[in-house]
């Protein structure tokens, strides 16, 4: 390995376009100009390969690839797609630079140094799998199956996750997409309407779109952004509630610059106002509501004035939003959000959103919350085996659930605390598949201690992310461009258009290089070594995909003939199911010791001299996954910190100044970023994009670029109903040229 010549230095002196210059012959064009060999040919006339499904994020747009001399040179949207069409976003376009990233994992590696400070030795697959299977079996024999923890993420992680959960029998699975992201949303809506809501609001046909923190444009899910922009183009009014003038606030009609942590009070006041002024959807509530009287009584303290004071927004503005929603109900899209792990009071906020939708009667109607009716496919995987219940960490000494409304899996903190204390039992095995807990879960140092004390840690990934530095065995996986696995189904995104359903299956656009393998191979080989050969459900990924497609009457061969996407007639989704219910006051919640009526729980305020650290998305990155991608890194090389311009003036900071941070526990950021001064953020908060500042030198482009916000999220807050994290309860001061700079109080 060349230690001194980092790829970034190299890039500064010469271009490292991984795609070779075309050896095109001079061709006379229509204009009679002789083309130079230096003309880039463009991709239009190159070979098209179909069947790609993106996994740069989890929206999973449908792709085609353009190939030149057996090399993928461009990725485009599949024109047959009724989801993304021929469009894909910056990350989708940049998939080429993941596929051919020289820093990508290539061979099985064994850590012959120490966890956290690895020294990598290349080993054979047999040796690697022997060690993984052997060591995991040893942990299982010594401590029990429940001693194996799993941190999965992405479509490839489902198969191994099911193996460990269902076959091996450990309940200790911590999916980041639940416990650090959307789990709270799903269970809060389950407790209100009996279903997880997704992001299923009919924005193209809405008269008002209401976003609480949603910041489309800084986050990008292609067809969801299309849906949002279509709604705006169709004349929908946009209300954005956000402490920051986000990309969505920039297109809003009303921007509520709310004090962080107080959103529930805002929502309760709106609902109380609507009920008091008889602007609620009475007929809808009579028919579908449950516990509405108790609910109305329970929120009546929330006058506009009380909320205005708590939320630091004008009374008139809360009224304006409420009136706008009522005037346009029920064609209003109350967006359920996606990443909702904010403050540790989030279940109540999500319950409030679900109830507000009900107060407006905006379920299953045009412009409201409407789930599409999509096609069904199979879910072939490991079978559930019988296992004993007593190893559930989520039980207290009275055998009651600690967190009664957890999403699937076990709350991350319960797993980590058991690992560190050994009580009620030790956690000694760790399987990390496609997740980077180090840059995802609050309390980085705690996570490192948890990994240190394991008997065995294995990681499977495509890139050498930070957590891979803690693996004993590191396995290289095929990327989404080199494999089968995911079946994407859905409908057209605008319900005003012809109703169509689609089924597509991910197919490789390029052959795997080096020694990368797929998840079915890896899991099956480990399963054999752990003694579970007879439980193996499929021998290959293709077998699994074909079995799942068969349920819909399709096959991979058939899809290949249909340009990768099968389209058929769809169904009108605007029908309220007979048994639909909106549970405003939830008695079960109360029986479990939680508020039955959505309730505002205040959060800790920044201490003097500090501001709250807020984070969010940037459109060229997906969490921390993409930070090593040269094209994406070039587009946004670091994550500037947004600082209120008036405060910046007082602090002597200007645009472009390099700063680091120190948080309320004295933890300092390892790297620096630049200041962005703007009036578009509250004085009590600062904001940066999440997922920068990798500490792994093997990520030669992303290492130390920008600041790792997760490293500053050291105070751990957990939502009491769900056990999922709240991650915006940490506060920072700035450091410039070694000096700590206080943030003047907002007062």
């Amino acid at each position: 390995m060349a230690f001194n010549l980092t790829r970034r230095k190299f890039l500064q002196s010469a271009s490292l376009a991984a795609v070779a210059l075309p050896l095109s012959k001079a061709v006379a064009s229509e204009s009679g100009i002789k083309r130079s060999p230096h003309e880039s040919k463009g991709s239009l006339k190159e070979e098209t390969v179909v069947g790609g499904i993106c996994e740069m994020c989890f929206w999973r747009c449908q792709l085609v690839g353009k190939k030149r001399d057996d090399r993928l040179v461009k990725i485009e949207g599949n024109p047959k797609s009724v989801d993304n069409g021929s469009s894909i976003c910056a990350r989708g376009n940049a998939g080429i630079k993941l596929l051919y990233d020289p820093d990508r994992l290539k061979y099985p590696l064994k850590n012959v140094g120490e966890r956290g400070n690895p020294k990598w030795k290349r080993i054979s697959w047999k040796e690697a799998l022997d060690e993984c299977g052997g060591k995991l079996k040893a942990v299982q024999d010594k401590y029990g199956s429940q001693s194996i923890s799993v941190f999965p993420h992405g479509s490839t992680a489902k198969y191994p996750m099911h193996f460990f959960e269902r076959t091996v029998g450990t309940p200790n699975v911590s999916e980041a997409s639940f416990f650090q992201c959307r789990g709270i949303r799903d269970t809060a809506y389950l407790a209100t309407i009996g279903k997880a809501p997704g992001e299923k609001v009919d924005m193209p046909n809405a008269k008002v779109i209401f976003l609480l923190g949603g910041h489309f444009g800084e986050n990008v899910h292609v067809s969801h952004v299309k849906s949002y922009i279509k709604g705006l183009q169709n004349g929908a009014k946009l209300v954005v509630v956000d402490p920051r003038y986000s990309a969505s606030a920039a297109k809003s009609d009303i921007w509520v610059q709310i004090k962080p942590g107080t959103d529930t009070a805002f929502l309760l006041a709106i609902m109380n106002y609507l009920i008091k002024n008889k602007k609620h959807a009475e007929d809808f509530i009579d028919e579908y509501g449950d516990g509405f009287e108790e609910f109305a009584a329970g929120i009546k303290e929330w006058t506009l004035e009380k909320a205005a004071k708590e939320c630091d927004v004008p009374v008139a503005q809360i009224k304006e939003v409420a009136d706008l929603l009522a005037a346009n109900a029920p064609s209003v899209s109350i967006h359920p959000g996606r990443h909702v792990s904010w403050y540790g009071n989030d279940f109540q906020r999500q319950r409030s959103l679900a109830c507000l939708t009900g107060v407006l009667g905006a379920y299953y109607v045009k412009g409201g919350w409407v789930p599409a009716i999509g096609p069904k496919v199979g879910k072939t995987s490991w079978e559930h085996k019988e296992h004993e219940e007593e190893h559930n960490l989520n039980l207290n000494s009275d055998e009651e659930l600690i967190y009664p409304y957890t999403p699937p899996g076990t709350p991350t903190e319960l797993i980590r605390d058991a690992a560190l204390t050994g009580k009620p039992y030790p956690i000694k095995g760790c399987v990390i598949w496609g997740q980077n807990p180090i840059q995802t879960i609050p309390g980085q140092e705690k996570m490192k201690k948890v990994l240190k004390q394991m008997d065995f840690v294995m990681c499977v990934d495509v890139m050498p992310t930070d957590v891979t530095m803690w693996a004993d065995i590191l396995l290289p996986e095929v990327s989404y461009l080199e494999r089968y696995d995911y079946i994407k189904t859905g409908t057209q995104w605008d319900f005003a258009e012809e109703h169509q359903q689609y089924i597509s299956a991910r197919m490789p656009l390029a052959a795997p290089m080096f020694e990368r393998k797929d998840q079915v191979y890896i899991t099956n080989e480990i399963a054999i070594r752990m003694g579970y050969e007879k439980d193996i459900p499929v021998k290959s990924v293709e077998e699994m995909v074909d079995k799942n497609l068969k349920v819909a009457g399709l096959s991979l061969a058939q899809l290949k003939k249909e340009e990768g996407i099968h389209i058929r007639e769809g169904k009108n989704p605007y029908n309220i199911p007979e048994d639909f219910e909106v549970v405003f006051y939830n008695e079960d919640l109360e029986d479990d010791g939680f508020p039955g009526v959505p309730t505002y729980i205040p959060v800790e305020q920044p201490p003097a001299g500090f501001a709250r650290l807020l984070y969010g998305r940037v459109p060229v990155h997906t969490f921390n996954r993409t930070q090593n991608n040269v094209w994406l890194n070039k587009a946004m090389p670091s994550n500037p910190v947004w600082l209120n311009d008036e405060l910046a003036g007082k602090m002597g900071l200007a645009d472009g100044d390099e700063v680091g941070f120190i948080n309320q526990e004295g933890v300092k950021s390892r790297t620096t970023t630049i200041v962005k001064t703007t009036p578009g953020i509250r004085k009590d908060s600062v904001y940066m994009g999440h997922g920068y500042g990798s500490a792994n030198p093997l990520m030669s482009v992303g290492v130390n670029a920008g600041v790792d916000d997760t490293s500053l999220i050291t105070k751990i807050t957990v939502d009491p109903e769900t056990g999922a994290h709240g991650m915006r309860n940490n506060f920072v001061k700035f450091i410039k040229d070694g000096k700590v700079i206080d943030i003047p109080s907002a007062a």
Partner: protein
Amino acid sequence: MQYGMIIDLERCVGCHACTIACKAEWEVPVEFGRNWVYRMGPAMVENEMASTYYPGLCNHCNDPVCVPECPADTVDMTFTDAKSGKTETIEVAATWKDPFDGTVQIDKSRCIGCGACADACPYNARYINPDQLDDVSEDGKADKCTYCKPRVEAGSDPACVQTCITGARIFGDLDDPDSEVSKYVKKGAKGIEPEGGELGPNSRYFGKKKDMALLFNSQKPELADLNQVRRRAMLASMVKPAMKTIKNIGLLGVVGVMVAKHAGDKEIKE
């Protein structure tokens, strides 16, 4: 026919799909771009908060500043109108404005890589591609947006237009009164003119009043000092060693405000 591009800022969400698709399509080296996206704001614009984007690209100007600055030896070039079959022969250096479709193009085989055109452009739309070397230039070739001429001629969309996730980029013939781009011009879509310039940019912007104000107040390109540019060009065509030194200074671009160390997220304070 004059091809033009409209950027509809009401639709644009600043996602950067256009810049990456262009890079992939035309093999642009990592550190350069044929197009760019900068974020403007949030900033106050006449007592209103605004934030928008500057998705920029070559303007294929009506009266380009770059074309006359090219010091390469001229040739007579015959252009053919794809539709009518008409021909026109013009004396051109290594870069020209097509008489039939209005796009500005570069002949890589004759470009000497001096960078005069890049310096002359007030928008920083051109760069020297260091990967493209031959016996005419050891320093690279001028490169820029071509309005995806080969794709358009084959009946397809420019790569940026095709990938735009919100349909914010609209491409077509500005001389056709029924085209989408013409409709946008009638609605008030306008291009960014440099101070004191009348270049006639054909990449135009449309959006809410406050967003247009933010964009146009922030982006004030300056015309290059052409005396400086021409001195360089002259030297370049005469003395290669001298050209190398001067090029290192010159290629930083005359419009200093636009060039950022942290390109991609550019904000101008009001």
